[in-house]
């Protein structure tokens, strides 16, 4: 296994499943993933078993419909970048399409609930396709929620027309044992702005691949991510930010906390500034907080620059253990160890949650979801130490 020296821009992308050979686990895009756990999701006979419910504002800003794959609004985003994403596309005969209508400002949140089984029977390998289309000048927020038990490969295409400005938040709070591959494929036209956030809390394995193509001049992307990963969980995010037009801006910030001894997280941040992408301004950051011996966080930033005519390009990556001096300071003021740890972990995420939660209700919901995961952990520790 060597370092991949080929440009990220030359990696295979295709809508045709047969173009992708079966992964062995040695490929660049698979080398961090337990491929065996996803083997069922690489085939072409997937079911459509999970339930999708959409709840949203009733105004004229948003239209929700189930459409065939041949609908003109489907398939506009960049092609799948690996076999598991192509399998989701191959199996999807229909798609749930959320359209944010042209020139409309929608203040409410459109909630798309992806619901697995209740766990009474094993989850069958399934596929699902969602599409979010923001027409020219549209504004709004779409929240994707994932709960229940699932074994799922999911395609999410997000297309922003000229001047659209939307927020898409994807929260992965699956039941224990769930396995999900999700392929977010995003295209931004001229002067469009997307705030995209993923929050991985549950499941045994959540592997997100996120392709962002800044296709029109002046497009702007904020890509944010949080993972709270406990022992036995694998949370992975592979990003590809493709600066394909001039004067675009991208900001990537992902943070993860690893709680238990067998917790595993992977973050790969590929940024490509193509030769025509003059005036690019990009920065990506990944930070991991390791709270337990034996947990492992891989963090791989990668910046390719094909033109010198840019405003700025940078990256930062750091994986740190819990700071013992902070712990001592807080404890020396009477604060018990578990509470001190919890304060520091909340602080670690606070700024990012504020950034994601433009809307108060989403911020509160995210805080509660992260808190509840952290509290489970500290209760668990307290029981163990008694």
């Amino acid at each position, binding site marked *: 296994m060597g370092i991949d020296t080929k440009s990220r821009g030359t990696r295979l992308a295709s809508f045709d499943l047969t173009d992708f050979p079966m992964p062995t686990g040695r490929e660049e895009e698979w080398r961090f993933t337990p491929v065996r756990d996803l083997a069922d999701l690489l085939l072409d006979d997937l079911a459509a078993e999970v339930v999708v419910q959409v709840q949203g504002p009733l105004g004229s800003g948003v239209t929700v419909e189930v459409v065939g794959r041949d609908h003109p609004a489907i398939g506009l985003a960049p092609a799948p970048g690996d076999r598991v994403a192509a399998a989701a596309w191959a199996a999807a005969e229909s798609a749930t399409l959320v359209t944010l209508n042209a020139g409309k400002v929608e203040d409410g949140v459109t909630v798309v609930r992806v619901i697995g089984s209740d766990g009474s029977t094993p989850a069958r390998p399934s596929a699902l396709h969602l599409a979010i289309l923001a027409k020219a000048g549209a504004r709004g927020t779409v929240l994707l929620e994932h709960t229940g038990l699932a074994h799922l490969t999911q395609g999410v295409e997000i297309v922003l027309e000229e001047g659209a400005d939307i927020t898409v938040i994807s929260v992965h709070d699956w039941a224990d044992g769930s396995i999900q591959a999700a392929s977010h494929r995003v295209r931004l036209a001229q002067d469009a702005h997307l705030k995209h956030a993923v929050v991985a809390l549950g499941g045994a394995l959540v592997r997100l691949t996120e392709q962002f193509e800044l296709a029109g001049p002046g497009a702007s992307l904020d890509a944010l991510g949080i993972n709270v990963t406990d022992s036995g969980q694998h949370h992975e995010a592979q990003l590809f930010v493709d600066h394909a037009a001039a004067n675009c801006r991208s900001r990537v910030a992902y943070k993860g906390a690893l709680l238990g001894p067998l917790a595993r997280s992977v973050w790969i941040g590929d940024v490509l500034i193509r030769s025509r992408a003059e005036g690019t301004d990009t920065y990506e950051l990944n930070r991991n907080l390791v709270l337990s011996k034996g947990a492992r966080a891989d963090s791989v930033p990668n910046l390719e620059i094909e033109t010198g005519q840019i405003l700025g390009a940078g990256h930062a990556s750091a994986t740190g253990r819990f700071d013992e001096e902070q712990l*001592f300071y807080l*404890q*020396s*003021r009477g*604060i*018990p160890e578990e*509470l001190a740890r919890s304060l520091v972990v909340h*602080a670690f995420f606070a700024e990012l949650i504020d950034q994601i939660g433009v809307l108060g209700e989403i911020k509160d919901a995210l805080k509660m979801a992260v808190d509840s995961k952290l509290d489970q952990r500290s209760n668990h520790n307290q029981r163990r130490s008694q």
Partner: protein
Amino acid sequence: MTTLEIRDLHVSVDTPEGDKPILKGVDLTIGSNQTHAIMGPNGSGKSTLAYSLAGHPKYRVTSGSVLLDGQDLLAMTVDERARAGLFLAMQYPVEVPGVTEANFLRTAKTAVSGQAPPLRAWIKEVAAAMEALRFDPEFQERSVNEGFSGGEKKRNEILQMELLKPKIAILDETDSGLDVDALRVVAEGVNRAQAATGAGVMLITHYTRILDYITPDFVHVFVAGRVAEEGGPDLAARLEAEGYDRFLSAD
């Protein structure tokens, strides 16, 4: 009436070269309303004494005992010591990004007193203490010590002393790095806190300057990990005139 009794305390620190003894038999007793100045040259072990009393994991007690009102302090965790009434104002206070000062103070007060303080009274108390220590109210919303100047960090330690009302307060070089105005503000805060609570104070310092503002009842000269000489406030005046050379040459 509180008593902190330190008896024949020996403390080592782990270094890459192995176990290094720092404290070599410290004896000291501090009672309520008393102020003990611990003076001595750099490297004599003054800070080691402060941090090992607070329970910093870097320091290992190899023998001796420390009793706070008869309770074995050394058997307690760091937070238990604080809840038992011990407070350490650190020489280098730690930054805690993302935790606001207001949240930190309230969480610490709740932990130390065993219940959340009544909200309205607490808000008034914090505001008054901050004003007395020349803190702008906006500091409550800032992260603990993050981006604070050296003087602000020291004042923040004394703010915590005033609000947490310890029985015994150890001030580790609280005077270092302060200009004369900041020194006076900090010293007034210590005196105010002591007058209000009757705390016993262990004032660790290299210089006599702070003793112009906080009058010690006892002065202990610390050399090579133990108390080499003890006396009243007049001993500080002698140190001011003579320095520590007398003790170092005898070592």
